[in-house]
């Protein structure tokens, strides 16, 4: 094989996410402070919904008691079935459609939202069996769901989302606000 460019340090190799995905963010989802979501948009327009690192679930050493994909009496995201290349049958989601409800051991409850319009392809069932995945690897194995936007809308979905720089600005403003005594 030919020579390898980055052989030395741990962090220099761009990860799978860096290579193929663009990170977008939604901060304070539905007005709730710090309930930030991170949307990984693949170059093929598929989106993976994950928790941003700033999300409360990932703070203060919380542990997860329960993850529930049953979001209403008649709707469970686990019943989502897609078939064929055009992914027929997948539940169509809007920005504020709930994906799941997470209850932590300290009784705090959080709803994770779709953040974009599109067809739900799958929800991550591994985190039902192994909730710690969500805490340890929120950006990879602990993902929440995969959504396929409509072809015509695929470029427009990012209009309501924050880029990484914009998100970092929002986060740094929070830190400043917190450090100032009210």
């Amino acid at each position: 094989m030919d020579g390898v460019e980055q052989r030395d340090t741990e962090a220099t190799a761009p990860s799978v996410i860096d290579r193929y995905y663009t990170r977008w963010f939604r901060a304070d989802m539905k007005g709730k402070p710090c309930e930030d979501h991170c949307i990984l948009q693949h170059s093929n327009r598929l989106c993976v919904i994950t928790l941003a690192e700033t999300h409360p679930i990932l703070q203060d050493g919380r542990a997860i008691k329960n993850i529930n994909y049953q979001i209403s009496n008649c709707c469970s995201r686990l019943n989502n079935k897609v078939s064929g290349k055009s992914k027929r049958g997948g539940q169509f989601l809007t920005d504020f459609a709930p994906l799941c409800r997470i209850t932590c051991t300290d009784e705090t409850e959080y709803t994770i939202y779709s953040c974009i319009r599109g067809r739900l392809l799958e929800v991550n069932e591994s985190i039902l069996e192994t909730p710690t995945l969500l805490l340890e690897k929120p950006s990879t194995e602990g993902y929440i769901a995969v959504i396929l936007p409509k072809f015509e809308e695929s470029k427009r979905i990012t209009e309501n989302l924050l880029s990484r720089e914009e998100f970092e600005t929002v986060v740094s403003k929070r830190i400043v606000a917190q450090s100032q005594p009210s």
Partner: protein
Amino acid sequence: MRKKDTNPLHLSHFISWCHDIERAAMLPLKDGDKPVVRKLLSSGCCARCVLRFCCISVQAAYRKPPQETLEELRAFIGNTENGKSQQSASDSHDAAGSEPPGEPPMKRAKLEPVEPGAAVGGDASAVVKVEEEESSVCVACLGILQELSGPTQAVKIAERVKEGEYEFDTLVLSVSLPAQLCVREHSCWLHVKKELREKSAALAKDDVIPVKEAFKWIMQGLVAKELGGVAVVIRSLFEVSVEFTHPETEADCHFLASTCASCFKPTKNKQSVFTRMAVVKALEKISDAVFLKHYAFPPPRPSSSCVPQDVKCLHTSIFIAGRYNKFCRSLPQTPWVIDGERRMESSVEELIAAPVLLSFRAAGFNFSSSGREDVDVRTLGNGRPFAMELLNPHRSKLSREEMKHLQETINKSSDKIRVRDLQIVSREAMGRMKEGEEAKTKSYTALVWTQKAIQSQDIAFIDGIKDLTLDQKTPLRVLHRRPLAVRQRVVHRMITRYLDPHHFHLELKTQAGTYIKEFVHGDFGRTKPNMSVLLKMDTDILELDVESVDVDWPPSIPE
């Protein structure tokens, strides 16, 4: 008139006797055919169409100059056993010219041609009628069996074939006729049937010689002659297509849409619904009574003949196979175009196809291979089997040396790819290649990166893992165009080669259809197990090479 040599021992006498026999045998018309011939000639059918409705299947009869045939037919209907020739000449329905007076009836039974412009007695009106009919377009064949078939047309067809500079041993002549011909044919047949029924004779539609067949009887030999005696056959790799249209009479079919609406479903591509097939089907269904209500006999005389379209030549596809190597990490297999814009320069298939298309002088190609690799993956070893269908090749045979030379040309044209075992294969051989895609194994080498620092003994255990079964969900990177599913794939064996604390080479032999990249980085945990799980740390794949595609096709060609 020819002076007959009365000495039976002379060769010339013998030859003219043969001609007489031939002529008499060429037109096996019976007395019962007379009303048919009369009716059709007076309705505007040309001589050759009359022969068709009399079920004359002697091919040579159609090759005679139409004028000759016409005069023979006129002579035929003008002749009666009782010598009532003068009476028939004054019959207003009779389109035949009159015979020279004083000729005994027996001679006329031999159907000797009457020279045009020869002394014709009888009705002056009959003569005028003759001239009109001679210059008018046939109501049945719309001119196709008149001036549109003959030596002049054969020369035109042959010229087009020669222009293409095709390589061929035989050819098949195919002809496409306007759909409304079926309607006119049907009309003529119904009336001929009626005429015969009165004499208690029957005429099945199948007994009538189709226009297409008569055309081919006339043209095949002529075209063959123009092309130096090439065999014109029924099936061949090389097809010469002749098409006729007749816009003037296209509306002839339209009434069928109201009588048999189910036959004429509108198509997506906005082409006319009155296809030949649909018209034929509607004519099979329609009752005689309904047809006669809508379509008059004789069919209206057209003012012009059919229009011949450009002659089209088509050679059946040729198939080329081989194996290719890809040495470049920025070359897609097929052209990469998004929104009409090319995203990456060239492609494997274009680099291979360019010299091949030139050598075979083909119009286009379809490329397929036993599996595919990503843009950034190299294909080493013996390479990946591929096959190409060459469309409408003007050259179809290349010798071994010429194929070798073509292979060298491809290899010299770029250092990004290499081709071997280039050969001509049959169409069926394409199936052999695709079977390799699912069934056979493949070998790879991957460059793996580890998040945590490792030592060689940390990865040694991997070499001991045999036939590891993976559950691979459709990778996210292809999920937009593939169905969501879980596939089980087997990694038969692995060999590791330690490089440094964060890198090692991983050789794998896997079942066909295994996603290697996803096995290494895990694809968000959607491939289980994966290298991250096995090593209990984050891993990623930096480079991938295909080492072998274990398909033993195409046969290898020694260099």
